[in-house]
């Protein structure tokens, strides 16, 4: 018997998202892990494969789009955010992903980056941060630490680095998160959250460059140091870290203070509870970066730092178009051709 069946959503696997292009990153590059996590997560997102679009810029990271069996454009240096804006504005149905690096996003593409955050297109922005220029073989990047010895800074970089999450928040990003290549499960969770968030989702991925900046983030993933150096953020949970979860962070006015949970004093009930929607606190957490707050060393936060629901650019654009259609109605072409004032010669 013939019956009408609704087309089932595609049943996809990670393999379906793997293109036939040979992956050409260096052995041991953190990019492999990111590619794998994206391909792992994508089948579950409920989006038809043909609706995914990757827009990348230039750099090692930006070869990413060639390796995904989706629609993709490997564009020019720094401009992925601007191209993606046009893609999303023109067709909001598409699930648009930008893949970029720290140089591509924060240096040559800095202007597009801040404006994308502000405009809040529903775009997922993955910034692979390896704190180095790799494709050009090892120069300091805008996220390299001060004093970094590279080919262009043989006596040490004299520049203050950007703190990407602080920059994104300052640029009015509606979603800011950090994850790292060596924590696949964490990254998968963040990718899902980024996808779910309506608005620009800025995801900074700490990514190891084994050739030009090996081990830059190992402190956040190595067993011995991880619990001391990384702070795992969870919405509604207290800020606790340390080898035996023995350290916590409290707020003294607007100053974060690390407290020892073992030795009495200020106790667990005073701990700072993470609230993703609290922008003031998100700004403070974003500043847990090297020695912040009177030179105290803070653990580096991972997870969703900030998430705020606000209308997207494309929603506002569509609403304005709809409103004007209702108010004025579409002008027929002949009316546009003739304008308001005409005269006739017989």
């Amino acid at each position, binding site marked *: 018997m013939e019956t009408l069946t609704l087309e089932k959503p595609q049943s996809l696997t990670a393999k379906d998202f793997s293109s036939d292009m040979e992956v050409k990153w260096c052995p041991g590059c953190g990019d492999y892990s990111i590619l794998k996590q994206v391909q792992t997560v994508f089948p579950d997102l409920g989006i038809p494969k043909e609706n995914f679009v990757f827009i990348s810029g230039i750099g090692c990271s930006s070869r990413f789009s060639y390796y995904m069996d989706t*629609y993709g454009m490997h564009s020019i240096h720094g*401009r992925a955010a601007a191209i993606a804006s046009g893609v999303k504005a023109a067709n909001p149905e598409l699930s648009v992903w930008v893949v970029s690096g720290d140089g591509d996003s924060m240096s040559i593409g800095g202007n597009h980056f801040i404006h994308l955050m502000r405009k809040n297109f529903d775009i997922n922005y993955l910034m692979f941060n390896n704190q180095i220029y790799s494709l050009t073989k090892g120069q300091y990047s805008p996220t390299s630490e001060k004093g970094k010895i590279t080919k262009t800074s043989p006596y040490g970089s004299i520049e203050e680095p950007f703190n990407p999450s602080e920059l994104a928040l300052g640029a009015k990003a509606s979603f800011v998160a950090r994850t790292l290549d060596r924590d696949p499960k964490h990254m998968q969770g963040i990718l899902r959250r980024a996808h779910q968030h309506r608005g620009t989702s800025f995801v900074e991925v700490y990514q190891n460059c084994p050739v030009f900046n090996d081990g830059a983030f190992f402190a956040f993933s190595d067993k011995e140091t991880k619990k001391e150096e990384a702070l795992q953020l969870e919405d509604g949970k207290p800020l606790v870290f340390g080898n035996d979860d023995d350290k916590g962070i409290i707020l003294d006015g607007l100053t974060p203070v690390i407290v020892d949970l073992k030795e009495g004093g200020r106790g667990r009930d005073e701990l700072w509870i993470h609230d993703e929607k609290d922008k003031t606190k998100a700004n403070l957490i974003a500043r847990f970066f090297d020695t912040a707050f009177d030179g105290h060393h803070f653990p580096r936060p991972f997870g969703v730092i900030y998430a705020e629901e606000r209308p997207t650019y494309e929603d506002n654009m569509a609403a304005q*178009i709809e409103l004007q259609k209702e108010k004025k109605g579409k002008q027929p072409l002949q009316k546009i051709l003739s304008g308001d004032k005409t005269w006739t010669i017989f």
Partner: protein
Amino acid sequence: MDTIEKQREKIVAKKEVDHIVVRFSGDSGDGMQLTGMQFTDTAALYGNDLSTFPDFPSEIRAPIGTVAGVSGFQVHFGSREIFTPGDSYDVLVAMNAAALKVDLPKLRRGGIIIVNTQGFDKKNLGLAKYPPDADPLNDGSLSNYTIHAIDITKLTKECLVDSGLGTKEVERSKNMFVLGLLFWMFDKEMDHTIKFINDKFTKKPEIAEANIKVLQAGWNYGDNTEIFTTQFKIGPAKLPPGTYRNITGNQAIVVGLLAASEQSGLPLFIGSYPITPATDILHELSKYKANGVKTFQAEDEIAGIASAIGASYTGSLAVTTTSGPGMALKTEAMGLATMLEIPLLIIDVQRGGPSTGLPTKTEQSDLLMAMFGRHGEAPLPVLAASTPSDCFNTVFEACKIAVEHMTPVILLSDGYIANGSEPWRFPNAEDLGTISNSFLQKANGADEKLLPYKRNEFFVRPWIKPGTKGLEHRIGGLEKQDETGNVSYEAANHEKMTMLRAAKIRAIEDFIPPAAPDTGADHGRLLVLGWGSTYGAIKTAVKEMLAEGEDVAHLHLHHINPFPKNLGELLNNYDKVLIPEMNSGQLLQLIRAKYLVPATGLSKVQGQPFTTAEIKEKMLQLLKA
């Protein structure tokens, strides 16, 4: 009680003339642009042919009363065909001393000057840098002209003494006095302007009333005072029958884009960053939200073109608009679009350069940049609009080429035609051609394989929209393998692809009309070859020379890359070729290089359009040599 109306004793001579040039000139805050446009609209609606030339400084409000702040609006109208705003003017309105100083040199000897005397006090003469004790209105230096010195400010104030408006608002209405006076001089109706004022100030009826009162006072002043004894009558022009509107080049581009969107069935997207003199296109299109137009004011010039590339990639008719400095910033992205082989329209409304140059003045100096200004070999079609209304045809054709040949297209306009206006016999929507677009729906290679760079007989690859099931693929700026579009560093493939991209652009010559003289015969002693906004000046010069019995012709190029197929052959039909350009000889280089003809250039790089006289002089020189 005196009940008898004063009998009118004034005798007014009515003088029929077939064309007149008026220059409205004043301080940037004097409202000369608005006055000029109102006068133009009225002349247009009456049926005069016309051409306008707004000529203003780049400073929004330069120091009041200085030469730097002078803003002019020139209108040439007539009962005969008009192709230029005029080499010189018959009437000069000068609202202050600076305006007189700047614009007197081009007033015809014997012409009429109307001045506002309050703009000629000691302070204003000083600001205009007249020598101390100079008194141009009374020292006899203007004896070659008919001068009407009127205290327009005082008359305006007297007229509005009971209006209850503040001094500023009262003084601001003085341009209406001038307009009213000019309407009287040229025997024009004021209805259109009265309606305009009422519409503009619906929410401020007291301002509307004041403006109309002053307008009327200006008209009455001409009608009643003894000093004006002549009214000029310029009948309607004998233009081809049809319905007309007045249009500027930038407006025509907007209408053309909307028409191209409609005729192609493609949604219109414009990604642009404000820049003089192109910004009006973005302004105007932003009003068409109800037609579904998506306008994106990008964060910079690069994001303007980059967003347009993104929109084109998804299947929109995508446009970016700019001027010289922005054009320079867009070049890398143009290279990407060339490599991606997607439709894109880049509109360059040229201005004086290099660098910031002369933002509000005109020039044709971006031609070679449009031709070659990209790294690597990246040929693109280049089209040039010749008059304000021609911007419509050119932008429509540019969209058609972009979509049907899958290529970025550069359209060159310039500040002169962008802001200048002329009557346009607009087409019927149903007579417009179509722009065919076809998106690939299923794999186009053997064994269900997708070949994104497989070309048709004109070397055109398919347009593939993201969201099309089964056609997922990657494109990018790295060199493509022929047909598959995969990244390829192979030596022979790169050469092949470079040649294929060039062949695709060359093949467009089969889709453009052959070159034919606009005026004059297809052979002769001298051909004047032009492109872009020099059209009006060249046409007028050639027509006059033909009337004087000279064997000359005018050919105007709309397609600069590729050139029309028969161009070389045609150029050889003339003994001499003259190429006037508002640059130092850019088309001249292209023509000499391609066709090896000994063409002569005529350059003008002054931020001002050619006068007919300048072109005629050079033509005569060549004919005599």
